[in-house]
């Protein structure tokens, strides 16, 4: 009882201090509003405004029809290029795609000579290159199909296979039918900010006490390091939980219009659980760093990999398997995974409980570790 009262009252002090620290307050507001919006509106994970150059040596209705099929928002209006410039233009990144249609292309198609058109792709444009190649293929066969069926199929041999193929593949995208990127990037943005701010806020709360000399003061009062650490966990955790809730309700659902499939309550419970771990890391790092700048540098080295490799940015199954094993020890991975399950796929507690358990166990382990280190440092912090 006494312990809980101490934790509570120390926590209220944390909250008051936080609201007086305008740099951190500004950081929280920025991180959960503008930063999320900026990330949602970036088109880094989709084909958007890709630059296309073309060399049409055929100048036939078919070739023109194909090039006209490359439309916004996926492509910028294609621009004609001269053959001798192609290499240079691609070297300097002027065009990501250059399509070349050989002479007599239409005639060869109609004559059943199976001509080839060429598509050069700048493979260094990571995200666009792969998806773009698929779009090109689809547009190419669709336009070809349209063109040939308009021509009645009169010139077609059955072997040309364009006549309705016996099997069609119907692809349906579950949970995000139009494959809208902002659904993904906005929520993953929030998740990345949670890790970042939990570490910074909790770490700053410890370093601030030390820089102001109030840590000594606390330690000579009848409060234990456990109570001090726990008060920082709950107070800073609460700030972030509220910020996440607001960001999800206002920025993601209202401003960006992203639908949320599952239970927000369940997700918030998961956030609170995860924060237990993330704030513990903050406290841990603060026991290593002596000043705020050092905390910031350590944070960069710890949090950036934790975020980048959590699966919130690139698919986790593409990582080499040793790294995947290592990352499965990081609660950030489980956090991303259950957040995606709840918010996109509408999963319930029956589906996500193993992830919750993993976060809770690793989080508790880390809290104990941070607490031990905190005790040691608190005991020996004199210089």
């Amino acid at each position, binding site marked *: 009882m006494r312990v809980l009262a101490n934790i509570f*009252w120390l926590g209220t002090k944390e909250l*008051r*201090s936080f609201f007086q620290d305008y740099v951190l307050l500004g950081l929280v507001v920025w991180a959960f509003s503008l930063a999320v919006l900026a990330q949602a509106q*970036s*088109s*880094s994970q989709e084909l*958007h*405004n*890709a630059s296309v150059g073309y060399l049409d040596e055929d100048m036939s209705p078919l070739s023109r029809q194909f090039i006209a099929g490359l439309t916004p928002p996926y492509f910028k209006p294609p621009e004609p290029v001269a053959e001798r410039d192609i290499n*240079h233009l691609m*070297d300097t*990144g*002027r*065009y*990501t795609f250059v399509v070349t249609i050989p002479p007599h292309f239409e005639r060869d*198609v109609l004559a059943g000579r*199976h001509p*080839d058109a060429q598509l050069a*792709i*700048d493979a*260094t*444009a*990571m995200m666009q290159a*792969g998806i773009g190649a*698929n779009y090109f*293929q689809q547009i190419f*066969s669709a336009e070809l199909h349209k063109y*040939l069926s308009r021509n009645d199929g009169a010139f*077609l041999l059955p072997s040309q*296979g*364009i006549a309705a193929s*016996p*099997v*069609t*593949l119907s*692809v349906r*995208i579950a949970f995000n039918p139009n494959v809208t990127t902002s659904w*993904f990037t906005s929520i993953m943005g929030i998740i990345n900010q949670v890790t970042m701010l939990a570490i910074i806020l909790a770490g*700053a709360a410890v370093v601030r006490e030390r820089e*102001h*000399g109030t840590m000594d003061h606390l*330690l*000579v*009062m009848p*409060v234990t390091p456990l109570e001090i650490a726990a008060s920082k966990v709950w107070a800073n955790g609460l700030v972030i939980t509220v910020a996440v809730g607001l960001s999800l309700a206002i920025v993601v659902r209202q401003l960006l219009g992203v639908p949320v499939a599952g239970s927000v309550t369940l997700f918030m419970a998961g956030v609170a659980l995860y924060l237990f771990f993330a704030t513990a890391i903050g406290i841990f790092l603060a026991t290593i760093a002596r000043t*705020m*700048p050092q*905390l*910031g*540098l350590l944070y*960069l080295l710890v949090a950036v990999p934790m975020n980048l*490799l959590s699966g919130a940015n690139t*698919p986790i199954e*593409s990582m080499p398997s040793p*790294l995947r094993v290592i990352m499965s020890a990081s609660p950030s991975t489980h956090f991303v995974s259950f957040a995606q*399950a709840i918010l996109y*796929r509408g999963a319930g507690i029956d589906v996500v409980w193993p992830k919750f358990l993993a976060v809770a166990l690793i989080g508790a382990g880390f809290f104990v570790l941070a607490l031990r280190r905190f005790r040691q440092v608190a*005991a020996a*912090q*004199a210089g």
Partner: protein
Amino acid sequence: MRLTEAIAARAEPVAALRDVTLRYGARLALNDVSCVIPAGCMVGLIGPDGVGKSSLLALISGARKIQVGAVQVLGGDIGSRHHRDAVCPRVAYMPQGLGKNLYPDLSVRENIAFFGRLFGLNRRERDGRIADLLESTGLDPFPERPAAKLSGGMRQKLGLCCALIHDPDLLILDEPTTGVDPLSRRQFWQLIGRMRQDRPGMSVVVATAYMEEAEQFDWLVAMDGGRILATGSPAELKARTGSATLEDSFIALLPDERRQGRQPFTILPRQGGGGEPVIVARELTRQFGDFTAVDHVNFEIERGEIFGFLGSNGCGKTTTMKMLTGLLPASSGQALLFGRLADASDVEGRRRVGYMSQAFSLYTELTVAQNLDLHARLFHIARDKAQRRIDFLVERFGLRDHLRQRSGDLPLGIRQRLSLAVAVVHEPDLLILDEPTSGVDPLARDEFWRLLFDLSRHQGVTIFVSTHFMNEAARCDRIALMDAGRVLANGSPASLVAARHAPDLESAFVGYLEEAAAARQPSPSGAAAQADLRPASSTAVTRRPPLAWFSPRRLLAYAIREGLELLRDPIRLGFALFGTAFLMLVVGAGISTDVNNLTFAALDRDNSVESRAYLKELRGSPYFVEKPPLATEAEANQRLQSADIQAAIEIPPDFGRNLKKGLATEVGVWIDGAMPFRAETMRGYLLGVHQQFLGDLAARAGQSAAAPANLQARFKYNQDFDSIYAIVPGTMALQLILFPAILMALAIVREKELGSITNLYVTPVNRVEFLIGKQLPYVAASMVNFLVLTLIATLVFQVPLKGSAFALALGALIYAVTATGYGMLISSFCKTQIAALFAAAILTMLPASQFSGMLTPVSSLTGAGAVMGRAFPMSYFLPITVGTFTKGLDLADLYKYHLSLLAFIPIFTMLSLLFLRKQER
């Protein structure tokens, strides 16, 4: 007054202020101050903290910009830039705070050499001058010791060496001896005295809080509340107020309302005594590494006694107190509190102790009432009792008018009373106070001591207090003199004075200190105190009045210093050299936009030869991994939900039969769309597999599988379309701007935060030299990083450098200058290091990841994004790394990017210069 006029008439004044007013925001620091400071003598500014002494000195030195009024220094207007540049080499300024303008990581010699370079001394002059100064200050035995490891007194001597390296005509010292032990203080003034004998023309202006010191000065300016109370020689001031001591005359000079209710301080004698000991220290020792902070200390403190601990900063007072509170375990020996071992885990014991640490440890963000309330709650005082206690304390400590104020906004004296109130909220039996009165004016100090006596004499509280003020020590029942971790003597003040046959406590302490120093070694400092300055002419600086606008030596001074500091800060150095490598390895190994290892499960409702053939096609794909088959649609849904599978394939009943009959049939696929990029890629893969099945089907039927036309896609530069070839050069470009920008921004803001930026304000160094000098080490670090990253790219990730290594290295060099310039620019807007760190990280990461071509090609950007991309240097370096590594290009293909990068350098430098001030506002 006659003497004043005599001095003033003797020579032109060294400085004259007319109607000077200075504000920091709403706070008035100097309120319409006018005075004439005579030349060629020792002038003291006296008054408590925060009355405007430092502001006045900063204005005279030219460190701070004049807001209102005029300040004449050395015969010219210090407000004019031209005059400032001209007299700057004749002025030396030592700001407040022990060694604030020194660099703690640099050695004694390096510190002095840095200032020598700033003042344009060549190597020979520097070496001669340094040898002289070290010898005369007694620092010669340890020229290689880092400034951080010097005692307070030695650090002040080093500060003096740095100030005197260029033979100034005007020496400005802001509280040079605060917190320094009396012996060092005495030596310091002897040193100044000898220097003045050698250079009789030199004027010295000193601010001090020690009234005893000020007695020795030629001429004084007494200040309070931003105004000058009086000027004149010490004798004049005392005569005018009819007081015996300067401290009394200062109090007499204060305006009436400040003195109201003041009674002369009287010591209440202690009744009885000889109670049982409350604190016992037995052979108490504490070591930090090989440094002994507290060395076999013994004492006993009785109940109800006021026990004083007297000593300089860093002599072990604080460490001893921390051991007594149990904050710090003792290395050996015992500390007993109430007869029990002091123990950090003894929560009950803490209820009987109140502690007030040096920093007035209050939560400055909380109001007075909140602070009191929080502490009452943490001690679990019953609510009604707590309320009564708080009411009582608020009344007794005079806090009623400030209840709702944030404690950070309170004046020092009131903050200190609050701090004491907080420490006694739980009615402790023992109070431990660590330098509770530093920086507080004499009136507030008396008031504070009255409270202490009240607690001790009337409530039986034992008080253990440390101080470096002699007159406070004299009020204690008993004191212990401490130096370098040892207790030199303890007893009542009167008995100590008597034991040394000294006139007063200070002399007694000095006597003990000299004895201890003599016992330690054939004392270097003692010898130095007698040593004479060599004839100044032997190495006196030949003055060269026309200072060059630009001096490579001054630039080098900053470059060398910054480089040394970086090399000696393990966290920053580690971050600068290995941070990039670490992140490169993580990102290179873990981030990939390749999509593979995709999981699928089949719901085969047909289970025919044909359906199995279809699934076999899928299993043959390198991208997919099959999971156990599905039984129902609900299961498919559930497994997609739990991310067990990422695609569910449904083959309808009669698939095989329909296929054979040539009837249309449809295979259904559900793809997990949670990650759109992965879903898109997966769709592409599935369509490819499907086409292949159709082709095989046609081939088996003996038909030609060929489509009427094909689009032959060719991935240029990277046939396998393996993302590592784009990610590694991209990450390299990102790291090489992120790290230099952060480090550079920190380096500049660090000087602002720690105060060494003063050296930019008051020495001849100009802003270009300052900025570029500081930039050079980080450009070098950046190039080391570049080498390391290139090696990691080629050796670890096997990404070969196909194009011109020269083009890449040249680009990296220009980029390093640009990136540090970007950090420089960011630092202009930041006041604290943490703000600089975040600003640099955010302002780099955002444009780097979104607008510079790393994920989305620059050619796809439109609108604001395109503008931001064009204005960010990485957009021009990325084509160079990707071009040389993956595209196999050389300088002829890329030189335009090099030129664009080059164009950033003057822009960033000019902007940074524009925002960096040569004077503090």
